[in-house]
């Protein structure tokens, strides 16, 4: 059943993009989840839509823009939104989470205005909302590959600093880790990954791909390294089987991918509950406490 995916170029594009996203979203998701920033991804994905709607509106009058992938405008808006969010967090020191709905609702509000100015919803926009196997163009694939290369290099270079910041920001700061610009770098990376994920899963479901595999992995992992391995495995299984099944069932891939990731999460939670007692005895842990998270 995979034959078709290699015969047709558009399917191959979707497949390759899916594999990249199935890797990138959970990897960054590990940091996002342990930093308790899961909701931030939602806000950033909505502001990405605003950027895309803005591009579609502009390209009606500025024809040269039609040759440019709207994804880049989406990325620019997402990065801009992430910077604004960081600023807002400093304005509301005691209510930091308020930055999320402010950015999210202004993103949607602005996006809706752009969309209606651009003569309302068309099929293209629908694909951005829920993802599409057919919509991944060669230029999308180029953009996604570029994001992959940049994000992987940055993660390898700054792995230890990002881990320390996620575990204990104050302590990291006292150890001389440059927390301010690393936080900034991290949120920019998040913005880029979110923007690249939306061709496959769609804006409304990006945060699911960032959080669901990690939520399952956190139940299984003892070390931070294991978190990455489990998250990537679960992310790839969800994306690949989601794409294939969406193609054959003729439904939006975003929905299938999320449903499969959700299924895995439920299996893991169920499995741990059923096997919890046995595992505890086997490993001889005396003080194992059920994680509160």
């Amino acid at each position, binding site marked *: 059943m995979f034959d078709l995916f290699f015969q047709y170029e558009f399917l191959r594009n979707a497949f390759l993009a899916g594999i990249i996203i199935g890797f990138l979203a959970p990897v960054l998701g590990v940091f996002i989840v342990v930093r308790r920033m899961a909701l931030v991804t939602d806000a950033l994905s909505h502001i990405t839509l605003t950027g895309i709607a803005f591009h579609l509106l502009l390209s009606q009058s500025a024809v040269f823009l039609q040759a440019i992938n709207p994804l880049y405008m989406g990325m620019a808006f997402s990065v801009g939104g992430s910077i604004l969010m960081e600023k807002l967090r400093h304005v509301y020191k005691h209510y930091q989470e308020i930055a999320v709905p402010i950015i999210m609702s202004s993103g949607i509000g602005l996006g809706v205005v752009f969309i209606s100015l651009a003569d309302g919803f068309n099929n293209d926009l629908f694909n951005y909302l829920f993802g599409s196997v057919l919509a991944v163009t060669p230029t999308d694939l180029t953009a996604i590959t570029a994001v992959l290369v940049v994000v992987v290099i940055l993660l390898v*270079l700054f792995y*230890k600093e990002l881990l320390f910041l996620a*575990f*204990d920001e104050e302590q990291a700061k*006292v*150890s001389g880790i440059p927390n301010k610009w690393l936080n900034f770098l991290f949120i920019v990376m998040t913005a880029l990954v979110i923007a690249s994920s939306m061709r496959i899963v769609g804006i409304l479901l990006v945060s699911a791909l960032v959080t669901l595999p990690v939520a399952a992995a*956190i139940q299984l992992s003892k070390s931070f390294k294991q978190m990455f391995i489990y998250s990537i495995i679960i992310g790839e299984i969800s994306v690949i089987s989601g794409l294939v099944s969406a193609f054959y069932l003729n439904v939006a891939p975003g929905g299938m991918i999320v449903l499969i990731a959700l299924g895995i999460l439920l299996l893991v939670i169920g499995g741990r509950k059923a096997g919890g007692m046995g595992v505890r005895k086997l490993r001889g*842990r005396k003080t194992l*406490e059920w994680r509160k998270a």
Partner: protein
Amino acid sequence: MKNTISAPASIISVDQVSFYYTNQPVLEDITLHIKKGDFLGLVGPNGSGKSTLVKILLGLHAPESGTVQLFGTPVKKFKSWDQIGYVSQKANSFNSGFPATVFEVVAMGLYGKIGLFRFLGKAHKEKIKQTLSSVGMLEFKDRNIGELSGGQQQRVFIARALVSDPEILILDEPTVGVDTASVQAFYELLSHLNKKRGITLLLITHDVGAMTSYVTKVACLNKSLHFHGSTKDFEESDMSSLYGHDVHLLTHEHGGGGH
């Protein structure tokens, strides 16, 4: 091991430091010098400004007036943070669901020293194991940090602070959330680090009782410094004036009950 206290140089110098929080004085005119080899207990009731003072020492807050020097360098210009090991109050209330092993947590203590764009090498891994062994936690190295007891976690955080070979260890309320039996063993460990390895210690606590049998110097803080000297000269009357009611100190010997 090294223990050269021949010419005691100030590791931390605090001179006439004041700090206000929305016009409320938190610290007033604090002058405090910590010399090499000191084991200083900084005590004071809740809200006396202890933690604020520590944050100023570490450059996390800037004082309203006065100066802070670390190893003779103004705190703003200080760069050798690996010389200072810090175990924060929050270390006890960290996210216990965080999926990291004891080894991974202690490795973090080396990250600042290793520097950007460099990775954990074989020598570093050896150092981590050696440090874990020195706090008696080597056998736990592959365990998840959240599975350990409060006392064990505290030893891991000490190891994290020690792994970069600091000159001074700053501990902010390290025994909160640690059971009584472990507290004594914990103080023994600190005393050992101070005497045998020559590590300078600054211990911040509101628990005057147990502490006075281990530290060599005491500073009492309640917005301003009420006492600063050796443990021997420290009187119950000093404490009573600080806390505003009678406080009974323990004998200056190991063991004994609470106050």
